């Protein structure tokens, strides 16, 4: 890589961008519009509530009382599973992220504890969960919080140390907050993909690429310049989106180093795909059509607009093969839940994908007119 060459390209791209007012407007206004329209649409939606699957093997008054407490205190939407069902199988079939099992003998243990005050009796509730969902840790947190409340009430002594989690959990999650990271991931994808395809097909058609092939610029320099340029645009539009989100909906999101990391991986992946598309299409129109064909399903199937849990099982399976899904989930894990482990896992997946696409993009970018 030659930094001078990449720098020269960047200067030309940014100047062209700055001097083309419609492109500038589109890059900034389009994401803001999305945030405003959808944010307004969802603003009055209730606080986010999580689904919780509960299998009550005890089937007694005490156990249903516990389920009610979870519903009320944890603000869960409880889905009851028949005792005859295999919980593990159910989790897999229904793509539910967490199943809580109340064991047989719950009421017996409960009464023994209450009536006889026997400190040795306890009951073990089982969580069966799927790590790949970003919501699962949230649910476990809430469950633990509700349970510790119950435990404490039963001992009758006020707690000495109050967990910091208590205050965090008291926080309300709003749908808008869930929505903003998805829109960021999606806008960065759209801008990178269409920006790259448009720029490269135009330059190819005008013969600029042919001229460039008689200069020392390499394909790697060229793609890196494209990536850097799109990343700068991504920073610009994301900043605009965040400002609008804060101003219009007073969202509460955690902005940390994961945000630029996921933006960069998003850009890498979709600039790479843009390069590959440019290579395999002859005309600008078919290139744009191919970019549409890739980005539209991605937008709707990868959970940009709504939590994947709201979608049927097979669609959740589809989502997991879409690169944008990992950007969505990674950004949500870091921006909403502060879950760095989940962010790391998602960034690894999209990182590998971006690297592969980047290399394919370099191979696909050919300077020569023909072979």
């Amino acid at each position: 890589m030659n930094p001078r060459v990449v720098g020269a390209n960047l200067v030309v791209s940014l100047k062209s961008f700055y001097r083309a007012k419609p492109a500038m407007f589109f890059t900034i206004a389009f994401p803001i519009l999305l945030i405003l329209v959808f944010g307004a649409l969802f603003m009055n939606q209730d606080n986010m509530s999580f689904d919780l699957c509960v299998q009550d093997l005890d089937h007694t008054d005490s156990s249903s009382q516990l389920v009610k407490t979870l519903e009320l205190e944890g603000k869960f939407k409880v889905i009851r599973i028949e005792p005859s069902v295999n919980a593990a199988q159910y989790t897999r079939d229904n793509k539910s992220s967490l199943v809580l099992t109340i064991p047989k003998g719950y009421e017996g243990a409960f009464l023994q504890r209450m009536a006889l005050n026997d400190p040795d009796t306890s009951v073990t509730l089982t969580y069966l969960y799927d790590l790949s969902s970003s919501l699962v840790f949230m649910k476990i947190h809430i469950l633990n919080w509700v349970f510790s409340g119950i435990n404490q009430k039963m001992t009758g002594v006020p707690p000495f140390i109050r967990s910091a989690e208590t205050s965090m959990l008291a926080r309300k999650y709003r749908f808008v907050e869930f929505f903003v990271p998805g829109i960021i991931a999606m806008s960065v994808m759209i801008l990178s993909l269409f920006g790259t395809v448009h720029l490269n097909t135009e330059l190819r058609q005008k013969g600029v690429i042919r001229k460039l092939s008689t200069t020392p610029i390499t394909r790697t320099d060229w793609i890196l310049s494209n990536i850097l340029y799109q990343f700068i645009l991504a920073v610009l539009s994301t900043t605009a989106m965040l400002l609008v989100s804060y101003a219009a909906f007073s969202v509460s999101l955690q902005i940390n180093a994961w945000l630029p990391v996921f933006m960069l991986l998003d850009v890498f992946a979709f600039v790479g795909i843009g390069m590959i598309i440019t290579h395999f299409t002859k005309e600008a129109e078919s290139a744009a059509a191919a970019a549409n064909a890739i980005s539209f399903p991605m937008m709707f199937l990868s959970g940009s607009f709504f939590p994947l849990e709201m979608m049927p099982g097979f669609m959740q399976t589809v989502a997991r093969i879409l690169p944008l899904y990992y950007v969505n989930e990674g950004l949500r894990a870091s921006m909403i839940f502060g879950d760095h482990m989940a962010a790391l896992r998602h960034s690894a997946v999209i990182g590998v994908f971006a690297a592969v696409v980047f290399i394919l993009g370099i191979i696909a970018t050919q300077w020569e007119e023909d072979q």
Partner: protein
Amino acid sequence: MTKKAEHAIEVENLTKRYGDLLAVNDLSFNVRQGEIFALLGPNGAGKTTTVEIIDTIRMPTSGKVNLFGMDVTKSKHEIVPRIGVLPQGFSSFDRITVKETIQYYSRLFSCGNTDIDGLIELVNLKDKTREQYKNLSGGLKQRLGIAIALVNDPEVLFLDEPTTGLDPRARREVWDLMLGLKEKGKTVFLTTHYMEEAEFLADTVAIISRGKIIAMGSPEALIESNAKYLVLTLRSVDEKAFDIVRKMGFESVHDNHKDIRVRVEQMDDVQKILNTIQEGRASLLSLDVRKPNLEDVFLKLTGETLHKEPAGGVAQ
């Protein structure tokens, strides 16, 4: 290091196929260092294909092309910094100014020492330095393209139809520019379908038709060996005049409905033709006698005129 070649360019049995189409058919020629070499031929003859194989934009199907003694298909990295290219229909970034564009290309070549203002002066774009590319006229765009081709101070320049689409004045300016470059010792490889351009500029002309070189040499030698006659052009609105000329047995072609071009061996023939027309009481608007040019050479060799557009439109 590369060996010093006496020829800047050596082409041997160069062939290029696009599927079934044989665009360039077994070309062999050399270009001497410091000369202006013109590839002259009509649209679709294979000029762009040939020049773009030599300047490393395209790959040949077969044959060998050496630039500075290096194989163009293997030594692109070494060759590119030493050549300057003006591709056919040159185009650049719409919203970037003249000066910025030259700066950009100079950075690609990592030439910190390019005399950008000097280049701007050379191509006479001084009062347009801050003009964006999209606002330039065709002639200015071509001149900018030539300036860009010069940012790395190349030894060999490739100019693919540098004056196509320019008005006569702009064309004249580009010609002067090329002569200036030759004076600086640069080798210029030029393609054109303008006979006057090749005749005026080139030290060596290669006439190409349907992918084959059909004649090569200095313009004077080509004319001398292929066209030892005079060209008489008669203009008339009287068909009788044309009938008379045709009946006299001279080789002739109609340029259009008013003009007829006649090949005559000597001035006496002109006298004879004029006398006969006068005796036949046919009327003439004008007449013109000139020495033959490359156009006539091309006509003689191919039976076609240079400016005839081939069916299927203009090729790239």
